[in-house]
């Protein structure tokens, strides 16, 4: 729960900064796997809901934690730090999804199902599907898709299953 609260406050912080015109960044690791793609896609979807501009996803080493010196950044599925989430006991995607729900977003069944699957992958447990998100990503990469293309596809498919909180609730949070 500690990580969920940390993630929620980092997302809210980036939302406020972005609204004020700061170029915000989501850091995740190079050679991204399902957890990195999904957690980055979830955060970017939330941040890009409000204008202006769009959050940038930055690919870095998974060994690098994001510290307070990078106040415009948030790390997902990278080393735990003041501004980065690893999802130690579960998956980063599970932590991020819980944090997003905590700030009032609704995630439909398909998003919950994909988060559950990625958590099973990340914790080395058996999945129902052979063609799970990791294999889908590997296949797309082998077919020549770049990491940015895969990320954009994931975001475009998730967006119809994510609903922002009602405006009144947002106003309450801002206040």
């Amino acid at each position, binding site marked *: 729960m500690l990580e969920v609260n940390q993630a929620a406050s980092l997302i809210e912080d980036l939302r406020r900064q972005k609204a004020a015109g700061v170029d915000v960044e989501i850091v995740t*690791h190079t050679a991204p796997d399902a957890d990195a793609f999904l957690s980055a896609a979830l955060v970017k979807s939330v941040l890009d809901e409000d204008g202006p501009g769009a959050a940038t996803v930055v690919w870095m*080493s998974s060994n690098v934690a994001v510290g307070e010196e990078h106040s415009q950044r948030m790390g997902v599925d990278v080393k735990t730090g003041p501004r980065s989430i690893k999802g130690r006991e579960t998956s980063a995607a599970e932590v991020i999804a819980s944090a997003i729900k905590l700030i009032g977003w609704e995630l439909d069944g398909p998003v919950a199902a994909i988060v559950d699957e990625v958590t099973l992958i990340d914790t080395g447990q058996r999945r*129902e599907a052979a063609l799970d998100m990791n294999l*889908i990503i*590997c*296949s*797309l990469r082998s077919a020549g898709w770049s990491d940015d293309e895969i990320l954009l596809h994931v975001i475009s*498919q998730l967006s119809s299953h994510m609903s922002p909180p009602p405006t009144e609730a947002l106003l309450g949070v801002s206040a």
Partner: protein
Amino acid sequence: MSVVAYYSRRKEGVDGAVALLLATKRATRSQSSRRVPSNEIHLVNKQSDVTEVLQLNPKHPALLMAGLWTDDLETRVALGMSQLNGKHKRSRIIDELEAPGTSLQCLIPKQQGRRIEFISEILRGLIFDAKERIEANRVCKSVRIDKLGHAHLPANVNRHFGWLLYKQGALVVTFDDGKAAMGLKLSREAQELGLDARDFEGLPDQWHREKWTIIYGSRKAPKPYDEAGITGEELQAVVRDNLARFHRQLEEEE
């Protein structure tokens, strides 16, 4: 050359079959057509105007039928229809592409044309990976596994294919790709025997250790290869020493 795969929208699961024709380059594009019977796909060569009619069996998934049209081992392995040695097996991949669940259901586009294109990209990647897996299997067959249960993966084989050497009896597989990563991985059997990679002696402290692996550098966390602290040959010697010690302990316990 332009070859169009014409298909009927009425045929359930036709997307997968058309996607495979695109992925294997038998077709260069696809288009739905009301004139095509639901259990057929028409491949029309636009230059010669020759039409090849492919029959689908209503009792079987369309993608399975499309897989049966080819003898290509890479395609069959990619679809999960064949093992690396060519033996047939039941394919979960085909079942899941026919009726997508979980991630695939969420990530697959709704619009049919885009869905076919997306599935063909996945199939293209699966075929590429199957080709790599078949080649790795061929190369690994000539790898010697010593009496301690150690085998070293050839440098041109991805370390994720270490399981091919476990299948041949290796307990510990070492790898060194010569540019980014080196380390070792334990087979499930080795772990069940009580071998724990965290107990290995003689390896640099900065290497990442888990119960089942010790690794320096990776694509997720790149590190300077030259700063690994030991060479690939030294790594193999250290692993052999540790395995010899482990076998002595096992004998003493017996």
